[in-house]
């Protein structure tokens, strides 16, 4: 905002700079009103989730509960309904994120540190890979898993889920690695360290925030993924929360809406928390460029 022109202007005349701030102030009220309206319509669909979760007699209309109780939460706090599915989600998501991180770091290192004529075509192919509609390949993947006898296997599902997010993970990891100045490694190279030793001892510690972002990014995606485990994991004992949520649809069409809402909230909390961590920390992860100047 500029106010520098204000001093030179004559009294009583509207200065351009004054017009800016006054115009902005006038524009502020309708902008506020419009945004609040938009925000309200975005919150409205979530209102039901919160109200129904504390209403023992919930349906799918949003209403203030007659009696507020934690009955729904208490009812789902059983190993079969809550803890086993959440644990499965945890194993799937953490496994997916770990596979991603290892493969992405290994791939990003040569791409970031060595000039090669393969680099640019490879990165564009990777980018192209991020565009593939994953839902479109689920039918062929199911067919492939049947042929290879991999259906209902946790490791196979983890490796497949990891591959779907791998292009994005490589892309992000390479960008974070590019931000680590190469001059720090050169000293290690002179001392006789190999490339991978330099990666482990110098580059990775410096980009750990970036690695955290990649891990969480992949974890959130895997945690929320419904379609992949829905198609590939068949037995109830292996299904993650995203799929087991259907157990609240009773056998005879009776839906336990209150419990469904309570389960949804408990299942969503971890990713909401992780998102907040990333959103808060994203700014500081680029601060390491100062490491070389000091």
């Amino acid at each position, binding site marked *: 905002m500029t106010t520098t022109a204000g001093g030179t202007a004559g009294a009583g005349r509207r200065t351009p700079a004054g017009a800016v701030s006054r115009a902005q102030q006038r524009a502020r009220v309708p902008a506020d009103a*419009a945004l609040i309206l938009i925000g309200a319509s*975005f919150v409205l669909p979530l209102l039901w989730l919160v109200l129904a979760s504390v209403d023992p007699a919930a349906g799918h209309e949003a209403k203030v509960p007659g009696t507020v109780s934690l009955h729904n939460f208490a009812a789902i706090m059983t190993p079969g309904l809550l803890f086993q599915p959440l644990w499965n989600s945890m194993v799937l998501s953490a496994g997916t994120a770990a596979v991603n991180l290892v493969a992405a770091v290994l791939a990003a290192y040569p791409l970031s540190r060595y000039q090669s004529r393969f680099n640019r075509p490879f990165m564009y192919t990777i980018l192209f890979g991020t565009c*593939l*509609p994953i839902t479109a*390949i689920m039918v062929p993947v199911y067919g492939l898993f049947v042929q290879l006898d991999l259906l209902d296997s946790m490791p196979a599902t983890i490796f497949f889920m990891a591959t779907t997010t791998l292009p994005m993970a490589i892309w992000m990891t390479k960008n974070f690695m590019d931000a680590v100045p190469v001059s720090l490694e050169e000293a290690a190279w002179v001392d006789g360290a190999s*490339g991978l030793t330099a990666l482990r001892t110098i580059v990775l510690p410096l980009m750990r925030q970036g690695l955290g972002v990649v891990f969480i990014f992949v974890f959130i995606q895997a945690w929320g993924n419904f379609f992949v485990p829905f198609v590939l994991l068949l037995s109830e004992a292996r299904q993650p929360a995203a799929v087991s949520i259907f157990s609240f649809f009773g056998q005879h069409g009776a839906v336990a809406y209150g419990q469904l809402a309570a389960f949804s909230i408990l299942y969503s909390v971890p990713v909401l928390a992780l998102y907040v961590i990333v959103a808060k920390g994203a700014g500081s992860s680029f601060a390491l460029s100062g490491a070389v100047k000091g």
Partner: protein
Amino acid sequence: MAAPTAQRLRPVNRRSPLLRRHARLLPVLPAVLLLLVFLVGPVLWAFHASFTNAALTGRNARSPGWVGFENYQRLVADPVLPLSLLLTIIFVGGSAILGQNLLGLAIAILMRRARRAVAAVVGTAVVAAWVLPEIVAAFAAYAYFSRDGTLNQVLAGLGLGQPDWLYSFPMVAIMLANIWRGTAFSMLVYRAALDDVPGEVTEAALMDGAGGWQRLAYITLPMIRGSIATNLMLITLQTLAVFTLIWVMTAGGPANASTTLPVLAYQEAFKFGDIGYGTAVASVLILIGLVFGAAYVRLLRESER
């Protein structure tokens, strides 16, 4: 980009130069293997299987037979396919290219004018719908649009009619739900893009007497056109792949009235057990994705030069 200094100095390695140069690329191998087995493999398998009579169960599940173009001939003759294509285009055009894109841009612009606190709170509300697990968002949208759901309660409060959205207007319901779910992405892209527009440029236009709409049309939008193109491409691809939202809300119904291509592929393969025909539908979708993906990469390459 790698720092140019990497050319001067390299890690010490006493093997022959040629071997060394290739050994350096070895760490890429695990990633390449994963991508070949789980991404390229299924795509190739899809094109192959779409020429067979592979089935979900029975004899044709274990040893599918080659049927040539039969699945594609069925596909072309099937009245559901043109409907499904049309619904997919309406869904992508209405909810992504128009809905998410324009609403995201509008929110990003409004946020620059509004009070900081208002912008922060509304931004959180918009992002919340996007961060939630997709199945939770889908259930929330289902409850919202159901006959006695929140939307109809609001409409009743305003004295308006209360249609059964999921049955009478399934496309409207899933499009609004997808706008609700996905607008955050466009909003974030456009907020970042608008932050990069130098303040002096818009101020200069303001001095010249340009109104708000004029500044938007002649200065701001042309300056962020790269972000607009990227955003349009990415949300188109994301929306093409939407399955869970539609499947939970309408399951493609009633009577195929909201059967987009992903839902059709799933139904043919798993509900009717015809993997061969399902993969033929999926192949069409993959091809569309590949075309958009290629266009997107081209766009980025050009903007880099």
